[in-house]
């Protein structure tokens, strides 16, 4: 086992990994940029080293500097977290070359998965399902007709050189195909200088479902259940849960076995996630593999009872998987809310700044992975993810109830957060019924927030409270005698006399 690990990351995930190191008796080494000196991960680590200016390219993405700290501090392994260098094959290789263990897959596995075409060739050989269609350009209208008829309408025509929706056409029925093909081709030619167009089955209301896998360096690989990640805003995940309301045991087993096949085809090691696109009829297709620990890994931890970061470290140290597939049991339901520093009332604009007040939820079934603290200033330079609030319960309904309760206990003052967004999602009937797809959240947000009747009562309470805050505030200002006298609040005076009474009573007894 390693004696010392460097964590090449910041924020909540760095804190998460530092905690795992502490639990395993491993010394943790943090790195930080100019603006992160006071960040939580630096406070929590056993050792911390400065690596440069705020710009990530000069600090958290600077491979020579990070390796230099690893060498100087004597770290035997580097955990990359997620984001930053976590899926950088060059970094994984540079670690190997420097004689430091990279906690993750090999550079070769990462490279294979990073290239869409190479990944597809390998995966197709391994019998992994892709969205039906042609992976190469259509030669003729006759071929398009034939393929579309085989895979079934609706189909999507896509420019081979494309991106950004250019050269794309949705075709609902055979009689629309010819004109759509012509239009897609000429648009592709105009936009990319290449008229090559291919056809794919169009997935109506797709869901994003992914499968967690773990592989050791001795050829063993297991799947640990799916995560439903369909709640997204502008393609960014906002809320994830496991199990998925769509997936039944049979679908889970099929998806898990395919995910293991994907991992084996890539000679994959350590923790990884295989992403699938699923239709509402439980047909699913391979999208890509994420070759790292995911943000949403805690939901899997809660329903499996496993600690994925402990396991990542143990597998990187060369240990065998300590359990078999048959020994993995899924139990209960877990859901994660990603708390971002962004303003829901201002188009989710980032809201950095100083956290003046932090009230954190706790209680049954609540886990909080956080990188913030009261008094800390959220820097403007990085991803606005502040914390993750994860709820766990016997079933989905109990989990939702616990999360709503915990969100009402959660308060972050001084900056704006998206906490209110989760109240809205979790109280939404469609969500509660498990009816979702990747377009769900954008549709929900397009509806004006249900403006309830103006809450006169709450407004009156707020008005009274505005005065009470001043009246009860311990005042240090002078020149207002009456206010300073009033500082002893209703409760405080009575409490003080109660203590006195008790002290007197105690005195009598002991005397």
């Amino acid at each position, binding site marked *: 086992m390693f004696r010392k690990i460097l964590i090449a990351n910041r924020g909540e995930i760095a804190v998460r990994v530092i905690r795992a190191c502490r639990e395993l008796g491993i010394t943790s080494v943090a790195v930080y940029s100019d603006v992160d000196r006071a960040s939580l991960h630096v406070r929590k680590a056993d050792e911390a080293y400065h690596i440069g200016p705020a710009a990530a390219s000069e600090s958290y993405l600077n491979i020579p500097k990070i390796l230099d700290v690893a060498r100087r501090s004597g770290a035997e392994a580097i955990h990359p977290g997620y984001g930053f260098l976590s899926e950088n094959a060059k970094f994984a290789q540079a670690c190997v070359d420097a004689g430091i263990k990279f906690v993750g897959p090999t550079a070769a596995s990462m490279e294979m998965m990073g290239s869409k075409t190479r990944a597809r060739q390998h995966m197709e050989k391994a019998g992994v399902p892709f969205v039906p269609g042609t992976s190469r350009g259509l030669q003729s209208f006759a071929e398009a007709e034939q393929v579309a008829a085989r895979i079934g309408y609706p189909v999507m025509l896509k420019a081979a050189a494309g991106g950004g929706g250019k050269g794309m056409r949705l075709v609902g029925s055979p009689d629309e195909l010819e004109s759509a093909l012509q239009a897609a081709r000429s648009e592709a030619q105009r936009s990319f200088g290449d008229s090559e167009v291919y056809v794919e089955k169009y997935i109506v209301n797709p869901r994003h479902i992914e499968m967690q896998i773990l592989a050791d360096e001795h050829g063993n690989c297991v799947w640990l259940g799916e995560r439903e990640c369909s709640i997204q805003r502008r393609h960014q995940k906002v809320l994830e849960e496991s199990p998925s309301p769509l997936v039944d045991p049979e679908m889970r087993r099929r998806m898990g076995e395919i995910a293991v096949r994907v991992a084996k085809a890539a000679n994959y090691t350590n923790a990884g996630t295989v992403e699938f696109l699923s239709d509402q009829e439980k047909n699913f297709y391979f999208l890509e593999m994420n070759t790292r620990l995911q943000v949403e890994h805690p939901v899997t931890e809660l329903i499996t009872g496993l600690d994925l970061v402990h396991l990542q470290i143990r597998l990187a140290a060369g240990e065998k998987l300590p359990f078999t597939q048959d020994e993995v049991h899924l139990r209960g339901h877990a859901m994660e809310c990603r708390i971002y520093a962004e303003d829901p009332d201002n188009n989710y604009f980032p809201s*950095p700044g100083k956290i003046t007040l932090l009230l954190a939820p706790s209680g049954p079934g609540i886990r909080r992975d956080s990188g913030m603290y009261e008094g800390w200033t959220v820097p403007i330079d990085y991803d606005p993810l502040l914390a993750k609030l994860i709820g766990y319960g016997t079933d989905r309904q109990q989990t939702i109830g616990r999360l709503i309760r915990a969100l009402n206990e959660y308060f972050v003052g001084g900056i704006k957060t998206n906490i209110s967004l989760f109240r809205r999602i979790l109280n939404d009937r469609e969500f509660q019924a498990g009816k979702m797809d990747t377009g769900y959240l954008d549709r929900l947000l397009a509806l004006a927030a249900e403006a309830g009747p103006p809450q006169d009562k709450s407004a009156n309470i707020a*008005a*009274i409270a505005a005065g009470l805050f*001043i009246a009860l505030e311990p005042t240090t200002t002078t020149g207002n005698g*009456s206010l300073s006298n009033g500082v002893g609040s209703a409760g405080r005076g009575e409490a003080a006399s109660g203590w006195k009474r008790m002290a007197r009573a105690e005195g009598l007894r002991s005397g």
Partner: protein
Amino acid sequence: MLFMTYEVTINGRSHRLELERADGLWQCRLDGREVRLDAVLARRDVLSVLIDGKAYEIKREQTATDMHLWVGGERFAAELRDPKSLRGRKGGSADEHGAKKLLAPMPGKVVRVLVPEQTEVEAGQGIIVVEAMKMQNELKSPKKGVVQKVLAAEGAAVNAGDVLAIVE
């Protein structure tokens, strides 16, 4: 005896509030209506209020530029003036008739100054663009008037609450 009068604005609506300590409780008059309540400041910015056995927790959020009060999951913009004691709310800008300050609502970098000094501007017209977390935010004039001063240059780093411009 302690007696206080405040002018409170909640979401733009003005209220007159009188608070009086009475028998360890508070006798409160809001726009002439009487309420008796118990209040404890649990910690700075967190207030517990009991009215007829009903419990409320109110949180106060003060940024460099404004104050909000949360009652449960509802958020209210609040302003408070205390005419008697002259204890105004902290961090406010100058009064409505005089000069108004344009404050940075968040730390960031000034990427553009949209109007030069001595320009006439409408209320709500953009004056300065500040970038934070790779997104740009246009800061708008708090009133109709003339931009007397621009205190931040393009490229400058600013902190929350910094005065960026003065409109008179």
